[in-house]
C-alpha cells in the first residue's frame, strides 16, 4: 500500500515537473507576451495540480490534504487573474506603443 502510494507520488511529481518545465520553456521561447502568459499559466496550473495530487497520499491527515487542495485552488485563482491583468496591461502597452521586449 505504502509502496503503491509512493510510486503514485513519484509519477505525479514527475508529471508536474514536465508541465512546469514546459511552462518555463514557453515563457522563454514563445514569441509575444500574450502567448507566453497563456502557456505559463496553463502549464503551471496543471503542473501544480499534479504536484498537489502526488503529495496527497503523503499528507498524513485529511486536514493537511484539504489544506493542500485549498492552496492549489487559491493559486489557481491568483495565477489565472494575475495572468489576465498582465495580459490587459501588455495589450494597453502595445496599443500605446510603449511595449518593451
Amino acid at each position, binding site marked *: 500500500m505504502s509502496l503503491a502510494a509512493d510510486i503514485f507520488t513519484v509519477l505525479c511529481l514527475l508529471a508536474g515537473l514536465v508541465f512546469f518545465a514546459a511552462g518555463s520553456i514557453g515563457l522563454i521561447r514563445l514569441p509575444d507576451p500574450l502567448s507566453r502568459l497563456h502557456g505559463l499559466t496553463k502549464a503551471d496550473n496543471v503542473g501544480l495540480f499534479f504536484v498537489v495530487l502526488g503529495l496527497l497520499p503523503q499528507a498524513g491527515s485529511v486536514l493537511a490534504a484539504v489544506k493542500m487542495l485549498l492552496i492549489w485552488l*487559491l493559486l489557481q*485563482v*491568483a495565477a489565472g*487573474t*494575475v495572468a*489576465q*491583468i498582465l495580459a*490587459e496591461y501588455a495589450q494597453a502597452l502595445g496599443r500605446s506603443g510603449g511595449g518593451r521586449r
Partner: protein
Amino acid sequence: MSLFFDAALILLAIVVALKVVTGRDPLTDVIAFIAYGIVLTLVWVRLAAVDVALTEVAVGSGATGLVLLRAAGAAATAKQEARPGRVTKGLAALVSLVVFLLLAAAVLAWPKPQPSLALAVAEHLPATGLGNPITGVLIVFRALDTLLETVVLLLALVGIWALAPDRTGARAWSGTPAPLSGMTPSGAQVLLAQLLLPVGLLVTVYQFWAGANVPAGAFQGGAVLGAMWVLLLLARLAPLPRLEQPGLAVLVLAGPFAFLATGLAGWVWAGGFLDYPEGIEKPVIIVVEAAIVVSIGVTLGLLVLGPAGPQAADRPGADAS
C-alpha cells in the same frame, strides 16, 4: 540529495542577487529584488526559521517591494537618473566581497556548542502563557525593542508625510495620496480583490492568533492586512484614504500606544514597566498584538500610498467605491 537542493538554492540566491544590482533600470531592479526576497524566504525555510521566512516574504519582499515599485515608477518619470559609475560599483562589490568572506570565516569559527539563549527562553516561556518562543522574545522578554520598532514604523510614516507639498489653510498632511495606478482596474483585478479579501483577512487573523503558539505573528499578519487594503485600493473597491481623518490616526496609533499603555500599566497591575499581570498575561498580550496587527497593516498601506498629492483632493474617481 539535500546537498544538491541547498546548492541549487544558494546558486539561485546569488544569481538573483546579482540581477538586483546589475539591472538596466530601477523597475527591473525592483522586480529582481522582490524575486530575491522570495528566494531568501526559501533559504529561511530551509534553515527551519519559519518566523523569519514569513517576515521576509511579507515585509522584506512584499511590503518593501511595493514601496520600491512605487518609487521606481516615480523614478521613471524623473528627468535625470543618477546611476553609480563603474568605479563606485566595483568598489562596493569589493567591499561586499571582503566583508562577506570575513563574516563567513567568523561564523564558521563560532564556538561549538554555540552559546545561545534558546534554553533560557524555553525555561521561562511557560510563565508567559505563550507557546511560540519567538513571540515570547518579541512581546515579553524583549518587549521594549518591539514597542520601539513599532514606533520606528510610525516615524517612517511621519517622515514620508512630511514630504507632502505645503498647503495653506488645511492641516499639513490633509488630502489624499495619489492613486496607486493610473489605469482603470479590469474586471479580473476586481474579481481577484473580491476573492482574495476574505482569504487575506482569514490569514491575518490566523497569523496573529496562531502566532502565540506556532511560527507566525503580528508583523506578518499586519503585512497581509496591509496587502489586502492595497489590493482593494488597486481594484478601486475602497476609496483613497483622507490622511487627516481621526479614524485613520486611531488605527495607525493603536498598536504602539496600546503597547505603551500596557507597559505603563505594568507599574499598576504587575511589578513594573512592560510587566504583564500574572495569570492573564496571554489575554493582555493578544489584545496588544491585535492592535499591533491593525496598526502595522494600516501603516504599511499608508507607506505604500505615500504623502498627500498636490491636487489629489479633486482628482476624479478618488471616491469611487
